[in-house]
Structure formats: C-alpha cells, structure tokens
C-alpha cells in the first residue's frame, strides 16, 4: 500500500466514525468507554495511549497540570536539595531567539515506542507495557539511574528519601527511579490522566493512537504535530502542536 493510499484509507475510516456516532454523544465519552478494560484482562497492542498537547492554548505561568499530577500521584515530600525534587511533569517556557516567539509547554515522559530507558536498564525494571505506557517496575529497580542518563527528555526522577505519604493507588519510594505513568491507575479504569482532566485550557488531548476514529488520530491527521527530538526516531507517544 503506497503512502497516499494509506492516507486515503485513514480519512475514509475517520469519516465512517463520524457517521456512526449518535448525535449528542461526545467523542471523548466514546474514547473513555473504549478504554475501560474488563477485570482480569491484560493491556494489548491493539491500543497505544498517547497525548497531543496544543502549545498555542498552553498559558505561560499556568501550572495546573503540575499540581494535578502532584495531587493524584502523592508527590508531596519536601526535599533538602531542590534539584532532587521529583518532576513527573514540568512546565517549560521557550523563546525562539530568531523570531522572539514565546511559548509554554508541559514536558513529561514521552512514552516512546523505542524507549532508551528500557534499552539501558540492567534489571528489566524499566519497561514498556503492551499498550505503550513506559513504566518502572519498582519491585526490581535497583536505583542505578542509567535510565535517567539515557532519557533525552530528562523525564525521570530518583527518590532520595523515605516516603510515608503515598497514595494507595500510586506506590512510590526511596531508592527507585520514577516518572510519568500516564496515570495508569486511572487509564485502566477508563478515566483520563489527571493533568488532561485538570487543564483549564483543554490544551491536552489524551487518546488511542491506534484507533483511527479517536480524536487524537483525527487531529494529528488534520493539524501539524511535532515530536520533540524527532531526529532520535524514538516515536514518542506524546506529540505537540504549535512548536
């Protein structure tokens, strides 16, 4: 199948999806219903979770997504050295020196299809789930931090001190590396990641990159989207618009 054929096929299936959806049913609800997996069923390759972030909507100085992430994942410890603070998601302000154009964006684990953190992990703790979510198995993480070195996005953090205030759904602790999990505990129950749900500008779109009817795939087909450091050919699950 040539490239153009495939493009046509995608457009046709997207059209079918639009027809099939009943009036009054929002696409987001459909996406959420699809993401609910029955108890006892494993995640499969039929889905690949991803995110599309519209930087033109992302307001400078707003860090609601960062706070929502901290609340959901129990990132509440005070650290002696601020450089040791866990950052599952952070806000970055960027300015193009040539044009002076400024924009702001959230940066977190990009959930690569070819994750360098998984390549370098000596124990197999750094792993990619079948549905594309990159995770750390803390049960076998030895805290060597190779993955932190390998990640081009500086997405991973190391916990330096004993923790006691974890959320029951989000275990995390001393001596292990951690990063954005796409709120796996919410996704598995058919909910959206905390940052996506909290964003007041609706700048973050979560969805299934393998589903041609999902809003994220349709938006990626119609608007210019970018992978950060696309030159590394990591095929990131988190894409950006307007950068």
């Amino acid at each position, binding site marked *: 199948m040539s490239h153009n054929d495939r493009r046509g096929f995608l457009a046709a299936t997207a059209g079918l999806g639009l027809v099939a959806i009943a009036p009054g049913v929002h696409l987001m609800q459909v996406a959420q219903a699809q993401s609910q997996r029955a108890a*006892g069923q494993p995640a499969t390759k039929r889905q690949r979770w991803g995110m599309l972030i519209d930087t033109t909507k992302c307001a400078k100085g707003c860090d609601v997504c960062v706070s929502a992430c*901290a609340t959901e994942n129990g990132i509440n410890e005070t650290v002696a050295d601020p450089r040791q603070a866990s950052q599952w998601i952070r806000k970055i302000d960027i300015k193009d020196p040539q044009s002076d154009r400024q924009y702001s964006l959230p940066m977190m684990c990009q959930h690569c299809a070819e994750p360098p953190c998984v390549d370098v992990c000596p124990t197999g703790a750094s792993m990619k789930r079948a549905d594309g979510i990159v*995770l750390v198995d803390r049960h076998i993480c030895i805290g060597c931090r190779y993955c932190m070195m390998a990640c081009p996005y500086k997405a991973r953090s190391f916990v330096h001190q004993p923790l006691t205030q974890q959320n029951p759904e989000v275990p995390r602790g001393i001596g292990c590396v951690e990063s954005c999990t796409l709120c796996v505990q919410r996704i598995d129950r058919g909910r959206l990641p905390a940052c996506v749900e909290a964003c007041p500008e609706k700048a973050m779109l979560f969805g299934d990159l393998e589903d041609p009817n999902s809003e994220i795939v349709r938006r990626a087909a119609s608007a210019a989207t970018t992978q950060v450091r696309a030159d590394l050919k990591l095929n990131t699950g988190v894409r950006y618009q307007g950068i």
Partner: protein
Amino acid sequence: MRRAATLLALGVLSWLTLLVGPVGAADGVPKPTIRIANEGACIAPAEEMRRNHMDMLKHQRDRTLRQGIRGEKASLNECIECHASKSTGSVLGKDHFCASCHAYAAVKLDCWDCHQPKTGFKATGAKP
C-alpha cells in the same frame, strides 16, 4: 555392672530432659498477636494464606504492573482494607497485622517503602 551403669545414665538423662524441656519451651519468643476484624472473609483459608500469601502477592504484582491486569483476587490494598488496625488504621506497628507476624518470623518487609500501609489514606498534593 555395665548394664546397671547404662540404666543409671539413661535414668539421669530422662530426668534431666523432664526438668529442662518444659522450662525451655516456656522461655520461647511470644507468639504474635493476630487480630482479624472480618474473620472468615479472606480470599482463602487462614492456613493457605499463612503459607502462600507472599506468592499470591508476588505473582499478582507482576501481572498487574507488567501486563496491566486489574481486579485480581489477591491485592495488597485489599489486605490492608481488612487487616488494618482499628485504632491506628495501619497494618504496621507493634501488635498489628503485618508487622507482628513478620517480626516473629524475622522477615524484613520492603513493601512499605513504597506502598501505603494505612487504610483509606488520601495523600495531599502539596507541590514540592
């Protein structure tokens, strides 16, 4: 003569055993306190749970984390829901469910380095 000596030696030995045996047993480490709130409501009989709970949890944790299987029969959070102390809400601390038995068995637990030992705990999201 030799037979008499053997009999005497045996007699002395058995007497010593009788004297020392029960005293030694009474000096043993006290048995752990096991208070179970919902008796009989566990996922398996107590004997099976005592022997196999670590395997149940280990296999479940790998399936849940690595394959994304949710809603399994064995679950650490479910253990805590039932077995947390009524007074402190925790499974840790002297005389409480996990800690008392594991202190008795001299098995160090790493679970609580990462997992929350309190039932119904809700973390505050104060930003670091």
